[in-house]
C-alpha cells in the first residue's frame, strides 16, 4: 500500500531521515516507535509532502508520489492528523469538519459525510455550532480524527493520538482506529504509548536515527527484549 525506498530528507539542510525504508500492507495498523529525534513524525511529513526529500522514493499503491504537495496527497486518499492541537479555533465544529473536505469538488457528498462522521462521534453533533476553541483537548482530538475521515481516506497518518487524552479517550480513539482498519483503511501511527499502541497494531516499526531498525509483527516486537531496552534509553545493539 505504502512503500518508502531509501528516503533521505529533512528541513532545509538538516537531514533527519537517512535512508528510511519500509512497506506497509493495505488495511493494517502499523505503529512507528523509536527514541526522541528518531524521525518518527518526520516520516509522516515526508509522505505528506511537507518535507524536502533529498533522495529515495515514496510509492503509494505502486505509484511514485515523492514530493507531492498535501493537496495532491489528499486527492489520492491520504490524510494526516499531526501531533498536538490542530483546529481552527474561531470556527465552529461544523465548519472545522467542513474544512476536512475543502479540496473536494463534490460538496453535497461532503455535507453527507459530515452527517455521517457526526453519527460516529455524537459529541460533535451536540457541539456543532460551538467554536473549536471551546472544546476540551480530547474533544478537539476527536474532531481532528473525524475531520480526517471526511473524504473516506485510504491511508491515515496519525501522530501521537493519545497525547493529552484521558486513558478512556485513548481507548476510544484506538477503537476507532481498529474499526477503520476493519473497514479497509490503512493506518500508520506514531505513538509514545508504545505498548498500548502495539497491542492494537498489526505491525510495528522501530525507527532510530532516521533509519528502520526493526520491522515485525506487533506482538513479536512487544515480546522482544531489545524493544524494551530501546525505551530505557539504550540502543538496539546494546541488548541481545
Amino acid at each position, binding site marked *: 500500500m505504502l512503500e518508502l525506498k531509501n528516503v533521505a530528507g529533512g528541513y532545509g539542510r538538516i537531514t533527519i531521515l537517512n535512508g528510511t525504508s519500509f512497506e506497509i500492507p493495505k488495511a493494517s495498523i502499523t505503529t512507528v516507535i523509536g527514541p526522541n529525534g528518531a524521525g518518527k513524525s518526520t516520516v509522516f511529513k515526508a509522505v*505528506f509532502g*511537507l518535507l524536502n526529500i533529498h533522495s529515495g522514493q515514496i510509492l503509494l499503491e505502486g505509484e511514485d508520489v515523492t514530493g507531492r504537495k*498535501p*493537496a495532491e496527497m*489528499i*486527492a489520492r486518499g491520504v490524510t*494526516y492528523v*499531526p501531533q498536538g492541537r*490542530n*483546529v*481552527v*479555533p*474561531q*470556527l465552529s465544529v461544523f*465548519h472545522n469538519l*467542513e*474544512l*476536512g473536505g*475543502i*479540496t473536494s469538488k463534490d*460538496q453535497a457528498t461532503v455535507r453527507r459525510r459530515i452527517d455521517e462522521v457526526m453519527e460516529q462521534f455524537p459529541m460533535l453533533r451536540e457541539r456543532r455550532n460551538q467554536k473549536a476553541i471551546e472544546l476540551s483537548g480530547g474533544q478537539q482530538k476527536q474532531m481532528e480524527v473525524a*475531520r480526517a475521515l471526511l473524504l473516506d481516506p485510504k491511508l491515515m497518518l496519525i501522530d501521537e493520538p493519545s497525547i493529552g487524552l484521558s486513558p478512556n479517550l485513548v481507548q476510544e480513539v484506538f477503537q476507532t482506529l481498529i474499526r477503520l482498519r476493519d473497514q479497509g483503511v490503512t493506518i500508520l501511527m506514531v505513538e509514545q504509548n508504545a505498548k498500548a499502541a502495539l497491542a492494537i497494531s498489526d505491525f510495528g516499526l522501530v525507527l532510530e536515527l532516521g533509519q528502520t531498525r526493526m520491522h515485525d509483527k506487533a506482538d513479536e516486537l512487544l515480546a522482544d527484549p531489545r524493544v524494551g531496552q530501546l525505551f530505557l534509553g539504550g540502543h538496539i545493539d546494546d541488548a541481545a
Partner: protein
Amino acid sequence: MAEFLQLILSGLAAGSIYALAAVGFTLLWQASQTINFAQGEFVMLPAFFVLVGMTVLGLPLWTSIAFALVLSLIVLGLMFKKLVVEPMLPHGTLPLVIATIALGVLLKESVKEFYGATAQPFPAIFPQTVYNVAGASISLQDIGNLTVSMLAIVGLQLFLGRTRTGRCMQATAQNPNVAEILGVNVKRMVLYTFLINAALATVASVLISPIYLAKFSNGETLGLVAFIAAIVGGFNQIRGALVGGLLIGVIDNLSAVYISAQYRSAMPLILLIIIILVRPQGLLGTSEGRSV
C-alpha cells in the same frame, strides 16, 4: 443636544472610514504577520489614481474610480505582496515593518514629486445636501459615508463567515499549518487578503478625499488613526477594528468642540495610552497566545 447628535453622526461617519483602514490593517496582520505602516499612504494613493483617471485620461468620475480600484489591487495588493512582503517576511516581522515604513515614505514622496504638493480638490460622491432634523444639521455626505463603509465591513464579515473561501481565509489566518494539511491553498488565501486590503483602502480613499482634499501627506494622520483604531479594538479582530475606528471618529469630533480644538489630535493618542494601560488586549480582543 442637537449639536451633540450632529457631532456623533459626523464622528461615526469619519470613524467608519478610519475603520475601513483599520480592518485592512488587522486582516494583513492576521493573514501574514504584516504590520503595514504604509496603511495611511495606501488610503492616500487611490484618490490620486482617480484624479489621474479624470484629469490625465479624461475619464468620467465613476470610470476613474473603477480604474483606481484596479490599479490599487495591482499596486497595493499584488505588488505589495510580491515585491515587499514576500521577500522581507522570511527575515522577520521587524524588517518587514521597517520596509513598510520605507514604502510609506516612497509613496508619499512620489505623489508629491509627480503630482504636486498642494491639496487637490476631489469630487464628492454624494450631494452636498444638509438636512435640518430637529435642529441638528444632518449632512447627506455623512450618512452616505457611514452607509458605504458599514456595508463594506458587513459585506466582508459575511464573506469571511458565510462562504467557503472566506472560511478558508479564516483558517489560513488562525492556523496556517492546519489549513495547509487540509489542502487549503494558503498562498492564494493570503493573496486574497492583500487584495481585500487594497479594495478597502480604495473605498476609504474615495470617501474621505472629498472632505480632506487629496494631499500627499494625508497618510500621516490616517495611518496613525488606523493603527490606533486597530489596537484599541483588539488588533486581531475585525469587529474590534470597527469599534476602534468609530470610537476614534466620535471622540475626535466631541473633543474638538467640548474640550479643545488644539488638543483634538492628541485625543486618539490619549485613548491609545489608556487602553494599553487598562486593557492591553484591546476592547474586543483576546490575549494572543502564539505557539512557537
